[in-house]
């Protein structure tokens, strides 16, 4: 690659904490990298871990789930389920050789705009380190 590799990150944010946190980062004009693209879901508990797999398959170089801090879920328990599922999917993907740095989760509350910016930074850095995800990327060219 001539220019530096810019990883593409797909993030799933819960509406009540993390998405609001991301909005706060915006309102407070905290600059972060444009590599992260956000998909809004109502709760981190909604995130089917297969979404992560699917994103990687589509060619995302990294994925991120973010939800309310444990105990603060707007829906009481969603993030607890999300945590269990994530931990296992993380292990599973690691086992087939996906760089663990690509698969991320974070707790970001509605008041943690700054933390969201940091999370993005870290996620992008890890994905950069892991390099382009083309292990099992869907390759249109092959068609």
């Amino acid at each position: 690659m001539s220019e530096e590799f810019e990883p593409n990150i797909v993030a799933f944010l819960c509406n009540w904490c993390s998405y609001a946190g991301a909005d706060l980062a915006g309102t407070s004009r905290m600059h972060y990298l444009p590599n992260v693209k956000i998909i809004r879901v109502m709760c981190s508990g909604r995130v089917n871990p297969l979404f992560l797999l699917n994103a990687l398959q589509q060619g995302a170089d990294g994925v991120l789930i973010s939800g309310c801090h444990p105990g603060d879920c707007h829906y009481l328990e969603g993030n607890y389920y999300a945590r269990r599922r994530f931990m296992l999917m993380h292990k599973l993907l690691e086992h087939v050789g996906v760089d663990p740095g690509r698969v991320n989760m974070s707790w970001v509350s509605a008041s943690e705009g700054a933390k969201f910016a940091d999370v993005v930074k870290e996620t992008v850095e890890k994905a950069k380190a892991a390099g382009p995800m083309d292990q099992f990327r869907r390759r249109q060219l092959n068609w």
Partner: protein
Amino acid sequence: MVDTKRLQEKAKEVLIRDDVRRLIGWKRGTYGFEAAPTVITDASQVDQLIFDATCVQNPASFISLEEKKPVPRGAEPDTRKIAVMVKGCDSRAIVQQLVEKAYGRDDVIVLGIPCRGVIDRRKAMKMFGDVTPGNVSLNGDKVAVEVGGEKKEVERGELLMDKCMRCRYPNPLVSDDLLGEEVEKWADDEFADVDEFEKMVPEEKWKYWEEQFSKCIRCYSCRNVCPMCYCVECVVTKMKPQWTRRSTDISENTAYHIQRAWHLAGRCIECNECQRVCPVDIPIMTLNRKLTRDVKDMFEYEPGVDAEAEPLLACYNPQDPEEYIM
């Protein structure tokens, strides 16, 4: 071991009951080192039933394979019981199916069989070639096999399934009738194979799986034989939305295998059928065992041992580990 006569009598006893629809067990295969699973509905068929070290298949898989046929108007659905013979490992499938409300405890009659291990077809053919053995018997740490008239004795480990060499449940965990003396557990599972695999760096791991998954022809045998896979419509073959494409390439094949493994997280009861049936030798259990090990370590959870347990991913503990979470 189990006395065939007793097994057949028990089967007859069950089949003549008018609240029993069918019985699932094993019969002699037409060739080679594996028995054939068999479903019989009539007491007159019991003499085909056997149990020995060739009875590798998991009969619990066949409970949910039976289609629910449309019931003609006015007619009553057939709700008679299914009788099923299970080894220790097979019985965990029954337990987990009960956890997941696949059917009620009263819908099945479980005939438990204490088991000392079953033969791995692949190992056997490497050792004896493409032949059909005569009598096969287990005594102590040895397996005796009759091949071409002569009796050969080999170390248990060389011939039995790997799962048997780390079997923690040789005796059924659920059964209405135990057809034979309980046997003593001879092994434990340290997941050494998982640890070994994990020594690899990501690149090596992927290189390994890339080769394995490329072989997959997506016959879905591994899914269909799995006693835990009985969704009405499997997400893998679903069209709306299409999670995985039917087309075969490394991307879709990988996605399929990860999905399959994921859906067994906290549910796999390690009967090893998925790996046994694979026509292209994909080491499918390597994925399942990784999860089984981690589920045990992270959540102190083991599926298929307690019918009262909550499903792993339908419950949580506020203190669950979260070391990778930012």
